[in-house]
């Protein structure tokens, strides 16, 4: 009588199953790649346009100052400070309000409270960050977050 549960069959299932689901995942990724242009606002990113350049610069500043270390962006990041994927709409679709908020942070924080560092951005840099956050808010995120509070 043959063995009921063999190691070689378990191994075959591991290899076969893994290849199968890798291929399935890649197939779904392919469809995603084809569908994303309708959802991810990539037309705004054209580097030959001024807006596209501002967004790219804004993302660069976002990364160079590790904003994700406190905030979330589309729900990902740290959970220490407010969600910023929708901050543009939360601030009344107003880039100036975003700029004013970043600029008004005191250098030594607010005693006893969570404080955002003072970054001393130039006006052009503030523009870029605000443009990047506006772009983020326009990505089709399937209705998330549930409300403007993020």
């Amino acid at each position, binding site marked *: 009588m043959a063995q009921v549960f063999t190691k070689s*069959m378990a191994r075959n299932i591991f290899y*076969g199953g893994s290849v199968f689901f890798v291929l399935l995942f890649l197939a779904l990724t392919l469809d995603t790649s084809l569908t994303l242009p*309708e959802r991810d606002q990539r037309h705004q990113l054209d580097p030959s346009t001024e807006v596209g350049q501002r967004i790219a610069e804004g993302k660069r500043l976002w990364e160079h100052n590790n904003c994700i270390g406190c905030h979330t962006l589309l729900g990902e990041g740290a959970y220490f400070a407010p969600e910023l994927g929708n901050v543009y709409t939360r601030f009344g679709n107003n880039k100036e309000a975003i700029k004013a908020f970043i600029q008004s942070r005191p250098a030594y924080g607010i005693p006893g409270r969570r404080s955002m560092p003072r970054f001393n951005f130039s006006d052009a840099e503030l523009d870029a960050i605000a443009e990047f956050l506006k772009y983020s808010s326009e990505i089709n995120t399937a209705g998330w977050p549930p409300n403007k509070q993020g």
Partner: protein
Amino acid sequence: MTATIATHQDRYPPGDLAIWIFILAELAVFAIFFAAYAFARMGDVALFDHYQATLDKDAALLNSLALITGSYCVVRALAAMREDHRAASVRWLIAALGMGTLFLVVKSLEYAHHLAAGVRLSTNTFYMFYLSLTFFHFMHVIMGMVILAAVAWKAHRGGYSAREHTGMETGGVYWHMVDLVWLILFPLVYVMR
């Protein structure tokens, strides 16, 4: 035949137990998918009914018959092997592979038709389910055919006998699982409304 072997055969299904664990996991995925389809349909019955009517029931019937026949071929292949008719067994396996190929061709034609009509996963919830369920199953048919081809090759090379053919049983139950899933999928997605 000793008592231990008898109880052993009574208690465990044919084939390697490892494939059964795998089959259970796969069936669990399909079960959740089917239930998800039914409950998603509750949210928009009109949409589901409308787009269900665009599916090709003739093709689905042909495919159902192909898979059932394919399953039957594998049953006969095993029966032949149990009587040591190796050549007949291989012929039945090749017939099963033929049925699998027929399924893939018909299904591909259906996909080509839908793709030409601009249907994608994101078109609407019905097509999302239709394409997801059938494509996931489609991949299983391919997987089952790869397994059957390996089994047929080994049978051809004399790797199985009336006494020892666990590998063929293992491949067989996987192929039947593919059939089993389609037998639910066909009425659920094509007929029921």
